[in-house]
């Protein structure tokens, strides 16, 4: 089936928003205004975008420490996110969560997560809710290549399989966990085969290719919605920045990084492919670029100006009642 024009424009808008958001956070971090650990998703946009745009309100996402992209793609308010990352009271989590804990249950975003591998069990739970309450929803869990080895991930694949839960396991393989290469850390070097060892069908795609990711997700989501249980997608791509802000990525060989933004850029590929033929007009995409730029600008201006959380909130929301 062809991906229709509004869908393509939407995909592009999400990718562009993520890219600009991350580029901007990178800059703002250097000014010293953003506390804590910040892990940027730039380079990986096609994954969050092409997958999450195929989800609905009844669907949920559990994310990782590198969660900005997933949050944006699942529909979190960009300004609320920027405020959160700046530690403001009007942030999406009242300034209590920060970059690593962005969540918005109203849009089905079950949280970035500071614990590597913690997201998959949570996604299984959301899928169990969907199944039990017959909402028709499914859960996507994004997993880093490092997280893929964590026992929680294996256990979750097994659980999702034996219960036939509607879970899409998405391995986001950016080649590294911190400085450790995924070509070393994943025993057997074949994630799809590992998923199959848990009885889960999987496929591998180039994560710089929006269309490839879209197609793989489309097929997997369709299968999951038909009630046949979990699926797996292994996405390979590049992270442009260091593991977190401050990391110089010196462990990456020079020839790997040299031209990565030139040759491994989902947004560029998308533009070339869609505007080369007759799918989309350059002007449409340029217009989106402008709108996104304005949005990100505004989000930073507002975040900077926003007040820090009221000190009284330090001890609120620990419990609902106590």
């Amino acid at each position, binding site marked *: 089936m062809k991906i229709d024009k509004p869908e393509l424009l939407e995909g592009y808008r999400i990718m562009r928003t993520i890219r600009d958001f991350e580029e901007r956070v990178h800059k703002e971090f250097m000014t010293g205004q953003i506390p804590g650990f910040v892990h940027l998703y730039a380079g990986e946009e096609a994954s969050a975008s092409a997958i999450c745009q195929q989800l609905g309100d009844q669907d949920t996402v559990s994310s990782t420490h590198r969660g900005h992209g997933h949050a944006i793609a699942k529909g979190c308010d960009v300004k609320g996110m920027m405020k959160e990352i700046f530690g403001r009271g009007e942030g999406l989590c009242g300034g*209590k969560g920060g970059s690593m804990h962005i969540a918005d249950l109203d849009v089905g975003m079950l949280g970035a997560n500071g*614990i590597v591998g*913690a997201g998959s069990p949570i996604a299984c739970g959301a899928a169990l809710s969907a199944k039990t309450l017959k909402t028709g929803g499914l859960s996507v869990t994004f997993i880093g290549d490092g997280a893929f080895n964590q026992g929680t991930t294996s256990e979750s694949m097994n659980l999702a399989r034996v219960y036939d839960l509607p879970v899409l396991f998405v391995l986001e393989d950016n080649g590294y966990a911190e400085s450790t290469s995924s070509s070393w850390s994943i025993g057997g070097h074949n994630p799809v085969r590992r998923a199959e060892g848990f009885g889960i069908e999987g496929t591998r795609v180039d994560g710089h290719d929006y269309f490839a990711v879209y197609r793989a997700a489309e097929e997997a989501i369709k299968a999951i919605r038909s009630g046949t249980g979990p699926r797996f997608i292994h996405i390979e791509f590049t992270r442009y920045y260091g593991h977190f802000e401050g990391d110089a990525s010196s462990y990456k060989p020079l020839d790997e990084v040299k031209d990565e933004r030139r040759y491994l850029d989902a947004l560029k590929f998308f533009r070339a492919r869609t505007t080369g033929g007759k799918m989309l007009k350059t002007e449409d995409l340029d217009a989106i670029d402008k709108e996104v730029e304005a949005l990100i600008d505004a989000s930073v201006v507002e975040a900077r100006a926003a007040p820090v959380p009221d000190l009284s909130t330090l001890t609120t929301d620990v419990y609902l009642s106590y």
Partner: protein
Amino acid sequence: MPVKSFREALNEAMRDEMRRDPTVIMLGEDIAGGMGAGGEQDAWGGVLGATKGLMPEFGRERVLDTPITESAFIGAAAGAALTGLRPVAQMMFVDFFGVCGDQIMNQMAKFRYMFGGKAKTPCVVRTLYGAGIGAASQHSQCLYPMITHIPGLKVVIPSSPYEAKGLMTQAIRDDDPVIFFEHNTMFDDKEEVPDEPYTIPFGVARTVREGKDVTIVAFGMMVGHAKTAADQMAKDGIECTVLDPRTTSPLDEDAIIASVKKTGRLIVVDEASPRCGMASDISAIVAEHAFEALKAPIKRVMPPHSPVPFASNLEKAYIPSVDGIKAAISAVMGQS
């Protein structure tokens, strides 16, 4: 009123809540039993039988036997609680906290706070604890102090069948994550338990016994020991108040402080390991907030700082005893 066992009381609470609320589900290893097997179904009903009968009534969709993957299914309980269910998951023994602790201490405990108040995580983690069944170092721990240490969790330790039913009903209806401790040796304890559902609020201590000389605070299994010791000492004219806080988090500090202000003496009986335990916690609260009332050192009756031993005689020596409590009572009275 009908007499029921601890097991029956728990079972009734869970059954009634499942009847009342279709979003309540159960998860755990062999909580029904016979999953995938060709023989009897509901063959176990949980390791000590507390969930027996639930699967036949509510079906495998709501009573889910799990593979042995505590991180996955306790985490699934956390995720399900975020998204509309009210799961009751069983971490069979609290000793297994080490294999799934993250989903309890960093996920369900913290969702609400980290997410700025947007999340609601109504789930219960049931778990067995305590020594006395010869199960040795890895199946006899208490560990409720470790759980109490974590902000965001509520911690319940029922001391009798009546308490178990009311507190379990409250736990399932509660909108925060609750870790519910069931003592390995108490499942056959019996007392009168009403047929109809009732709740016991969290954070309200129960006065088991009143007396003017000494305040004894005890938890779970130790409440009975404390009462026995107090009853025996009454024959010597020493009158003790015995308080059962029921929940360690929230803790009814006010009731404890008020009682110590009356008696001037405090003993805390705690089956958990002695370092950073509940005995220390309560002692510290009193030493800070009721210091002036104290007439004697605060005594803690606790096991030694060692793993739980296997051999029956060692295990018996390990567990705080009625005699140990009596000795503490004598000590605080002698020193007044």
